């Protein structure tokens, strides 16, 4: 999936940034492809993915879950990566790039804290200063990850503005970038932001589908959850022009698409500009961004990456949404059937299985983007409701 020279995918994307960031954006534009293609970067990055992250991540045939649903279900185990999610694929790549470009200070935004932890980890390894912006509400609901970041030497700055979640953490990271443009590299955690970030992050995450191609014949379906959409882009990347494989993105419907408490930007939003790109956003008629809601901090974002907006428009991928409640139930089902505690984000992809009606020989890959250690408090608080319903 290629952007045009102005960074657009169809009508989506671009680089809607204030002039203050123009030089940084240009610098990254000129540097990123040559660096990604250089032998020295490739060697370091691939070695680290193998020995440090533990890649390739396994593709696990979930026997019990498959019997339960009556079709073949495979889990791409991104939850087994070092730091517990797919985020490390991106953070390590961008941190190596920052180092190559002579930047000494790293900033990042985080929602669930997975990107924050991955970035803090990469910075500790590569001896870079690391500052992570995190919405105050997320600091509270994902506190184990805050502690992990602090243990790794990062400074976590709680963001008190707006909805105090991922959107506001991103605003604050961009402000920091404007104020420290000279020495700072902004490691964006998803396929969002101004061009070339969506492309850069998609390329770094594309290792997921590159491995899938070696692990399995073309599956019938690949299903991934979508906040900004980085794990989905990674899982879709090498299958986008393959008509045999159906690509499915699952947004967080929150309390329901029409409840006013949702984070499903494609289903409940329309195109607009936020955080440097033109994409689907949840907004009111005046163009004010509305506060999203999802039980999952990592999906609690009012937009979606511009590549997904284009895949949605072109029909090359299909997008659905599941509610908080459906995600929780899917997580408990995976725990009981397979002994795996998924991240709340990944539980949204799992919940889509309930909506699939497939033949026994058809196959589905669920991108299990992260593990659920950080979500134990939320799961425990819902344990009674779920048991009651089973």
């Amino acid at each position, binding site marked *: 999936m290629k952007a045009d020279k102005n960074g657009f995918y169809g009508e989506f994307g*671009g*680089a809607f940034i204030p002039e203050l960031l123009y030089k940084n954006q240009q610098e990254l534009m000129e540097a990123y492809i040559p660096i990604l293609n250089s032998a020295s970067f490739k060697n370091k990055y691939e070695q680290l993915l193998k020995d440090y992250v533990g890649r390739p991540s396994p593709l696990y045939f979930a026997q019990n879950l498959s019997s339960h649903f009556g079709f073949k279900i495979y889990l791409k185990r991104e939850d087994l990566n070092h730091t517990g999610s797919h985020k490390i694929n991106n953070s390590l790549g961008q941190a190596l790039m920052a180092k190559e470009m002579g930047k000494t200070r790293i900033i990042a935004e985080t929602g669930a804290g997975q990107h924050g932890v991955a970035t803090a980890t990469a910075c500790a390894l590569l001896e870079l200063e690391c500052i992570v912006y995190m919405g105050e509400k997320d600091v509270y609901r994902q506190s184990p990850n805050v502690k992990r970041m602090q243990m790794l030497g990062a400074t976590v700055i709680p963001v008190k503005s707006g909805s105090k979640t991922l959107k506001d953490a991103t*605003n604050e990271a*961009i402000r920091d970038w404007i104020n420290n443009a000279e020495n700072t590299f902004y490691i964006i955690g998803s396929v969002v932001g101004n061009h070339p970030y969506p492309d850069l992050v998609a390329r770094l995450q594309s290792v997921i589908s590159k491995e899938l191609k070696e692990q399995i014949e073309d599956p019938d379906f690949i299903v991934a959850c979508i906040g900004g959409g980085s794990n989905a882009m990674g899982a879709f990347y090498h299958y986008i022009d393959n008509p045999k494989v159906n690509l499915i993105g699952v947004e967080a419907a929150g309390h329901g698409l029409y409840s006013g408490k949702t984070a499903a930007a494609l289903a409940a939003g329309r195109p607009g500009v936020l955080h440097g790109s033109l994409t689907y956003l949840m907004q009111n008629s005046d163009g004010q961004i509305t506060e999203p809601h999802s039980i999952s901090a990592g999906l609690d974002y009012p937009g979606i990456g511009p590549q997904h907006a284009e895949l949605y428009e072109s029909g090359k991928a299909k997008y659905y949404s599941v509610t908080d409640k459906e995600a929780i139930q899917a997580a408990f089902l995976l725990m009981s059937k397979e002994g795996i505690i998924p991240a709340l984000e990944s539980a949204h992809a799992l919940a889509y299985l309930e909506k699939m009606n497939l033949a026994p020989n058809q196959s589905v890959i669920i991108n299990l983007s992260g593990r659920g250690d950080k979500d134990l408090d939320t799961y425990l608080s819902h344990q009674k409701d779920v048991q009651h319903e089973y």
Partner: protein
Amino acid sequence: MSIKNALDQLFSHKSEQILSLFCTAEYPQKGDTRKLLDHLYKAEVDMIELGIPFSDPVADGNTIQEANAIALSNGANLKMILDSLSKQNLDSKPILLMGYLNPFLQYGIEELCKRCNEIGIAGLIIPDLPPELFCLKYESISEKYGVHFIHLISPESSDDRIRFIDAISTGFIYAVSSNSTTGNEQKGNNQAFLERIKASKLKNKVLLGFNIRNHSDYALACQYTNGTIIGSQFIRHLNDNGLSKVSVDQFVNSIKYAQIHSL
């Protein structure tokens, strides 16, 4: 391009020591836009920038972020602000709207420019609209309706970049004093940048904004540029002293004239 509106009229008779004040619309109270304009018309101010509030003002520091949030909680939106302006008998002082792209985009850029033309709004300052996209999509609209789109330059802008922006600009160029969000109290004038602006001999007028706090910042800026834009410091003053004629005049005097300290 030949746009001729209130901004061009101002520059035709004045090109030095221009003072433009910025304040978020519908701030601090609902309905205050009109009061603000009345006071500014009567004050020694050459130009007025009205901030259109946005939920996610990423180029702004705390003061203007807060003003945005309060204006939104007062129920402000672009349509209502434009309606309040059209009812107003606009003065000859140029008024510009400054805001982030999304609310303008949702309103419709052409529709907005048409409306600006009817009301008599001289220009738009949209920090997250890159000049390249302006050229691609909105230059002809700007010309058609006689509305200037004002572009920014910063100390990070190369000489080539500054020349490019000068070539595509009309009205004036908004020079950002330092690499920072608005109202950053740790950052001030960047002398090297001011000298670079002066040496560039640009065809457009240049006004310096961001982090101008007092008479000495203003006086220094006026030596190198055609004047200044003050936002955060003006809003802080209004926060402390209220929105009244006395308060606005007091602020304008403190910027324009060196303070004489009597014993």
